[in-house]
């Protein structure tokens, strides 16, 4: 976990939407085998930061580095060439499509031959394997995603990011809609990935205690800025809550 294994770094990221400044000079970094937790109020800019890291949004200013080299991500596909995969907060699922089509959306398996036809059968097979891997209860990969429960949908989104060989895995509240058992499964899955040592993971969450438990390092974001950063072992939910309250008051007064 030394600086030489750094997978992703962002420096001075600013993002404005019209008059709204969603990110006001945010810097972050994460190393291979490390898991960074991002905590913070609603509207703090956490998801916006994620979407910049995935190439979905272009930053207004600031610089990103992948494996130490400066990059300017032009699109989601471009970010994916660096192994950046994301479970978006809205899950990025298309309700009218089957589970297996969603799992392979924009990374479809094609049949050999000049016509580049979809290989539905291979996608079904891989989808079944990927879901069995996670162990989340889903009756059939033929079901439309719209027919699934919130937690099942979240499991599909996680399975998609994990099955795509992510080297930098971004998770935007991946446990929000999950039952206790399923959350346990996903956490187990994340910990297995972490144990492999070659994947960098960034997770946004709202549960302080849980985040401190599974992450190596945590970062607090408020009103578009990073207000606190610490190794998980060196802080506590009480301290984090204290800082959030203080910063919130300071922002109100200032």
């Amino acid at each position, binding site marked *: 976990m030394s600086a030489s294994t750094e997978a992703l770094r962002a420096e001075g990221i600013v993002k404005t939407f019209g008059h709204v400044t969603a990110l006001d000079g945010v810097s972050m970094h994460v190393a291979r085998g490390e898991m960074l937790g991002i905590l913070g109020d609603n509207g703090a800019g956490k998801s916006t930061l994620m*979407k910049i890291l*995935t190439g*979905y949004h272009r930053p207004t200013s600031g610089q990103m580095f992948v494996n130490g080299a400066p990059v300017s991500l032009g*699109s*989601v*596909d471009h970010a*994916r060439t660096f192994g950046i995969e*994301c479970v*978006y907060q*809205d*899950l*990025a*699922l*298309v*309700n*009218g*499509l089957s589970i297996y*089509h969603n799992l392979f*959306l*924009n990374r*479809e398996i*094609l049949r050999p031959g000049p*016509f*580049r*036809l*979809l290989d*539905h059968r291979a996608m079904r097979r891989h989808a079944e394997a990927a879901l*069995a891997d996670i*162990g989340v*209860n*889903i*009756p*059939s990969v*033929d*079901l*439309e995603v*719209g*027919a699934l429960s919130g937690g099942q949908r979240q499991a599909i989104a996680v399975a998609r990011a994990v099955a795509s060989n992510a080297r930098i895995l971004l998770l935007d509240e991946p446990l929000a809609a999950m039952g206790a058992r399923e959350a346990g499964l996903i956490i187990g899955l994340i910990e297995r990935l972490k144990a492999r040592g070659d994947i960098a993971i960034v997770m946004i969450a709202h549960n302080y205690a849980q985040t401190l438990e599974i992450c190596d390092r945590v970062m607090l974001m408020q009103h578009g800025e990073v207000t606190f950063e610490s190794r998980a072992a060196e802080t506590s939910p009480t301290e984090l809550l204290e800082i959030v309250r203080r910063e919130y008051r300071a922002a109100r007064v200032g």
Partner: protein
Amino acid sequence: MAAEKTAAAGGPAQAGPRSGLFGRLHDFLLRPEASVIVVAVILVIYFQFTNVNFLTNANLETLSQFIAAPVIIACGEIMLLICREIDLSVGQVFALAPFVMERAYDIGLPVVPAIVAALLVCALIGYVIGLITIRLSVPSFITTLGMLFLITGVTLTISRGFPANTPGGKLLTNIMGNWGYAEMVWALGIVVVMHIVLRHTRWGLHTIATGGNVVAAAESGIDCDRIRMGNFILTSTLGGFAGLLEAFRIGSTDPLAGGSNIMFLGVASGVIGGTAIAGGTGTIIGGLVGGIVLGVLQDGFTLQGINAFTFDIIIGAAILLAMVANIHLARLRGAGQG
């Protein structure tokens, strides 16, 4: 874990292909095209029993000529409807294309290049519609409403308001629509290709994703603007091609051919066939059968001597009925799978 999986697999919510005659029938009835296929079969049987001339070669030829153009247009409109767009001007492109071909022929191009030139102009119109809709964020309903008037004006200008004769030798003219079933053969070929595009290519899947959830599609890295642009170009080009076929069949072109009437027939074919106006789902096969239903109704009632006014009432009612049936069958489908 294993126990859970077995329980889930044996549970009532299981989907996927069923076996046995009733299982297959059940699967078929859950398809979005199912209701319109049933309706088409009933109509054909009804008209055959009430009119001996219905299933004769001469009448089938007439029928096929009525069906072909709306079906070709439906193939484009269905792709657009799936990605939440529409093209109201395709009927005007239908009328313009033959004149572009004739003018190109007049200035010295051989017939085939003249046809290609006409199709390129149609594609360009689709591109312009796409640019205005996507870059300037104008709803395509408005963009193409404007284009509808604009293209009518252009067609009337370059035709000076007069019909023109189609160029070309006998073989080409026959292939391009003059032989009785030529138009229908083209239409069926386009249906097959577009069905494959929609169900078995990334383009089709991404079109469905764009219409189903544009944010999700973009977050997955799909270039939704490119998908929409491509489908605008496709629809205009197909509209122009249908217009060319019609011109070659008749041997001359009327500047007021096609128009909004043929556009509405195309859209109605798609919608009757099970394509949702709200986007995200659609079927090309359904569009074909929808076109057949409209054609059979028109032709059958004409044979029975029902007058044009009554006919419009019946068509209108049929479209409403088909929509209601589709919405309710979709709900049944949802219940059957959920």
